[in-house]
């Protein structure tokens, strides 16, 4: 369990995120939301980044991360976490930022330089519910354990595996 201290005038709502509790503190500085703090309480020793890959298939949370990434993040950050001409690779970001930092950026957004802006997703329930999963999927991608494209989920379609040419591809 860790927490960062908030030096802000306003404390945001407490949200449940992927089984973890996240306290968001949104600070208003000038007319912009700025990153102030994000505190994450781990409820047990089960690290959210502890993904499972088995025979090329992934656990449900990692799959949910793929899906959330593809629905929401891909439009700027490019396919499969690889980055684009518009926004950086989240695979690379996940290697240099802690989960707490990652969640805080997604929640608060940021302006890196004039004209380079990441929006705040604090009000987007779907994104906030899946931010841990997105991080988990990115960790798996960065480690090379999950390849490009839509991964299969462990346990899904095992009975028809022989007839499914895609499902047994290993990384």
């Amino acid at each position, binding site marked *: 369990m860790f927490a960062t201290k908030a030096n802000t005038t306003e404390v945001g709502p407490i949200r449940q995120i992927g089984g973890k509790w996240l306290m968001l503190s949104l600070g208003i500085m000038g007319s912009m939301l700025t990153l102030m703090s994000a505190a994450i309480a781990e409820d047990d020793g089960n690290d959210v980044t502890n993904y499972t890959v088995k025979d090329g298939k992934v656990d449900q949370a990692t799959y949910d991360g793929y899906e959330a990434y593809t629905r*929401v993040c891909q439009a700027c950050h*490019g*396919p499969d976490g690889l980055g684009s*001409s*518009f926004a950086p690779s989240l695979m690379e970001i996940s290697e240099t930022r802690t989960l707490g930092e990652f969640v805080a950026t997604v929640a608060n957004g940021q302006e890196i330089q004039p004209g380079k802006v990441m929006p705040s997703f604090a009000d987007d329930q779907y994104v906030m519910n899946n931010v841990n999963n997105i991080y988990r999927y990115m960790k798996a991608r960065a480690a090379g354990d*999950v390849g490009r*494209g839509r991964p299969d989920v462990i346990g899904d379609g095992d009975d028809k595996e022989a007839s499914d040419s895609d499902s047994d591809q290993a990384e």
Partner: protein
Amino acid sequence: MLREFSYAIAAIGLAVSAQAHANENLLELQENPEYWATQLGNYQGNRYSELDQINRDNVDELRAQWQFSTGVLRGHEGGPLYVGDGKLYIHTPFPNKVFALDLEDEGRVVWTHEPNQDSRVIPVMCCDTVNRGLAYADGRLFIGQADNTLVALDSESGEVLWEAENGDHTKGETNTMSPLVVGDKVIMGISGGEFGVRGHMTAYNVETGEQEWRAYSNGPDEDVKIDPEETLMLGEPIGEEDLGETTWPDDEWKRGGGAPWGWVTYDPELDLIYYGTGNPGTWNPDQRAIDGEPADNKWAITVFARDPDTGEAKWVYQKVPFDEWDYDGVNENQLIDVEIDGEQRKGLAIIDRTGFGFLLDRENGELLVAEKFAPETNWASHYDMETGRPVVNEEYSTFRQGVDVNTTDICPTAMGAKNMQPSAYSPETGLLYAGINRICMNYEPYETEYTAGQPYVGATLTMMPAPQEDEENGMEGRMGSFIAWDPVKGEKAWEIDERFAVWSGALATAGDLAFYGTLEGYLKAVDIETGEELWRFKTPSGIIGNVNTFQYEGKQYIAVLSGVGGWAGIGLAAGLEDPEEGLGAVGAFAALDDYTKLGGVLTVFALPDA
């Protein structure tokens, strides 16, 4: 002193200008082949120049004369304007700087305009902070800023003459398109199709910026400016009332998209403007169905012909009723005069996002030709010429396949077989020239909720290169091409394969040349009759801008903005997966990021002095 002086001129302009002054001025400029006064070269959108100093025989001598860095890193769409005053006018993506460059002095900066915009507009620009360029008429330049401010600048000084609010970014509205001046009005659309905006086209007074009319793309007839007894559809009056409301479930039309963010063309004789509207609201077709059946979602993906003075719709043609693939119908409507079955027709040609090349009668909207220019196109087998409707292939219907089902191998991709990059038309060859995309997609709709200012997409999309046409001459490893298209016969005259989608606007000239740029950054000149490459130059970054030409002091110039970005930069930077390699494959098609990096630069070319 200069400042007061220019305001004085502006005030005089306000007092004495005749109503149609701007229009006459712009028509005059367009008729002079030495100028390039509108983004598409003329009102008809032909991107054709009668200049022939640079031609088939000497183009291999073409040299870069000077370059100018815009200092902006994002995708540079649009191109430079030249109106005969010795200055080249260019613009940039957000923050939408405008530069007047001195042609006498190799691009010395005469003036700069840099607006102070709220950067919170950036996250609601779906596919990069692009801007498709300036418009000019009668001493004024017009630009639609990202933050929805339409600005008129004094072209001599760069001073702001007026500003008008064209939209609200907190609802997801932004500006990316180039305005067009018609008569005493500046015509301007809106972007935001991925945010559930309600699309609109608006006319502002050229002198004052006052709003003159606004026509929505959906909702009741009154808002769309349709008269069901008068407005034609396939040559007949529409008949039914309020189809822009009744072809949607509940109030879905209120977030029904139809954003017109592409190009506007104009026929001065018929006195009609033409433009197309974008995708209908959410990408999840299930949320746009009525009682579980497809609904037309009018008037998304529709060509509108309107009276520029009143906004009234003369005719409509919906290219894709009930979109299931995000096939925005915004591509330019090329106004061309054609002979068809021995008869002279006033035609309107579209190389469309859907993979089909259309030819319509621009007087009444009658559909004359609809043929595939991208052979991999599979979402529809063909168009029923009686009903004007596509015959949809159920296998690639994301609605029939269902919500949370990944419909695979649909061609073309949502980017379209051709996106907004404007085509060229040569009246000498009768052919259209266009850069196209050879990319397919998987598309999975999902239930999404509308929140103002948040993305309202409702589908996941992954892309892959189009399948090979044949082993010998096919498309292997190629994601784009440059084509010459016969709009009457509905067939390709020739095609040049390219490694990446071709995302630049084309140029055709009387010098028997066609020009286009590539995403790697090459500017290429090809023989207009055969497609044979005659010349190329590597600019510093990928080209998604338009190639323009003009003549200054007896010398013909070619000018283009390079600076990779846009949807192409987002989708192709990392490369696409090879569909043959299966899941989790490491092998991907060429990554754009391996060929080019960001950075806006204007390059100006001419033949060396004799």
